[in-house]
């Protein structure tokens, strides 16, 4: 299998699709992000791990501006994120996000959950939106749940609907914020399988997760964060085989140890 991301990186010609330059963020007195520098290439799969409170969620939430950074620059797909609402919405059209708590719209059916974005933000007709929704519902293997409400589905099914909802916007980048942390163990693999298939389709992905099996399978780059800093960033072989810092070693021991 050829790897577009590392090919592009070694050739040094493709521009990054996500770029964070010296990004800092504070919540009141607490500094959540410290001088974050990051570049993600088109097609690259970045997996971010680290202890809770390390800033990994905050970092990816800055990429689609669910959090506002206070200094530094964030450029996504050529658009710089600033206070301009037009830029923010342009970026959000290209960046899908999957949340730990699914955040499906409980008052809408599965199909309506999927159609609302294309209809309202992409200005598609109802028929077009429906066609697209059915396509992506098929892609996450639950076409038969189309007319149910989220509360009638299992956690794993809900998370797959959430993934499909993002995909219906046909984004260029997908962000995953601990997508399996709220799931019962037996449902984790169905969600990871869908994510793996998505990775194989060439999607640019940034995943915050502690599922190291998944990370080893799909990641081009592994990243370890602690206390608001990027402590280590390497390809999976180096990252798992030969972590440089003690903090990272200890963390990996803890989560791989059981």
């Amino acid at each position, binding site marked *: 299998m050829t790897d577009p991301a590392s090919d592009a990186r070694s050739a040094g010609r493709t521009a990054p699709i996500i770029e964070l330059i010296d990004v800092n963020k504070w919540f009141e007195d607490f500094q959540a992000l410290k001088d974050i520098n990051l570049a993600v290439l088109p097609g690259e799969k970045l997996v971010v791990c680290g202890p809770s409170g390390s800033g990994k969620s905050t970092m990816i939430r800055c990429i689609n501006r669910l959090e506002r950074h206070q200094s530094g620059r964030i450029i996504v797909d050529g658009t710089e994120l600033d206070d301009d609402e037009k830029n923010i919405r342009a970026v959000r*059209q290209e960046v899908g996000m999957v949340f730990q708590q699914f955040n499906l719209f409980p008052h809408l059916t599965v199909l309506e959950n999927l159609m*609302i974005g294309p209809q309202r933000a992409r200005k598609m007709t109802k028929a077009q939106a429906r066609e697209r929704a059915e396509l992506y519902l098929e892609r996450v293997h639950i076409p038969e749940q189309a007319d149910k409400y989220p509360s009638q589905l299992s956690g794993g099914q809900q998370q797959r609907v959430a993934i499909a909802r993002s995909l219906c916007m046909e984004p260029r980048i997908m962000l995953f914020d601990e997508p399996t942390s709220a799931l019962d163990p037996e449902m984790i693999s169905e969600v990871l399988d869908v994510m793996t298939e998505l990775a194989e389709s060439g999607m640019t992905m940034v995943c915050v997760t502690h599922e190291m099996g998944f990370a080893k399978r799909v990641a081009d780059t592994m990243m370890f964060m602690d206390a608001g800093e990027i402590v280590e960033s390497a390809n999976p072989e180096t990252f798992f085989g030969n972590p440089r810092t003690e903090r990272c070693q200890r963390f990996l021991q803890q989560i791989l140890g059981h």
Partner: protein
Amino acid sequence: MRLAGHHRTLFKMLALSLIAVLLSGCSNNWGWYVVSPMTKSGMNNLLFLIGGLKYTLLLSVTAIMISVVVGLLVALPGLSENRALKLFNRTYVECIRAIPILVMILWVYYGLPQIADIQIGVFWAGVLALALSDSAFQAEIFRAGIQSIHRGQYEAARSISLSYTDTMRFIILPQAIKRILPALGNQLVYMLKMSSLVSVIGMQELTRRANELVVTEYRSLEIYTILIVEYLVLILIVSAGVRWLERRMRTDEGS
């Protein structure tokens, strides 16, 4: 439409008390002839009283529709991060809800035409006063309802690039309204009762008609008893309707 259990109990109690009142009417203290459907004048009086229902309903329903819209428009700035918008919301709510409804009615009917140089009829003065008074409460109800929606709903809407208006219209408000429906029902009941105050400026609603009939017939006990029954029946029907709507919206989510 099936009525909920406690509603049926209420109706039974109502029927029993009605019978009690009518029976006691056989004694000399009562003079039910004044509204007896058996006589021509009694029937006319009864129809005159019930005729006020139309205006009570029209007044309350128009007013509550306006106050819901105004309340929502006042609630939204209150949820903003902007301090000026927040201040507007607080000022409006605190000032409007400090004004007694009766005073508001008098001020709108007698005062407003003098400063605004407009002609305002009894009906619209009543609607305006009721709607203004109620809008402050609606604003608080909406604010609480919208605030009760989980932050994740906004984030999910934003992540698929929905605009603020679309997020409110399709995601937040449908869920918020479902939650505040009992409170909105309360406000409607409250409004139906408070519309009786508009009688002071001459609106021909239920209370005004009862007052007028009392003046000509001198049978205040019977006529005001009928008035109470009119409000009671009206409000029982309205709250049964609201409960039916609540149940319907609950089953909408399939759980």
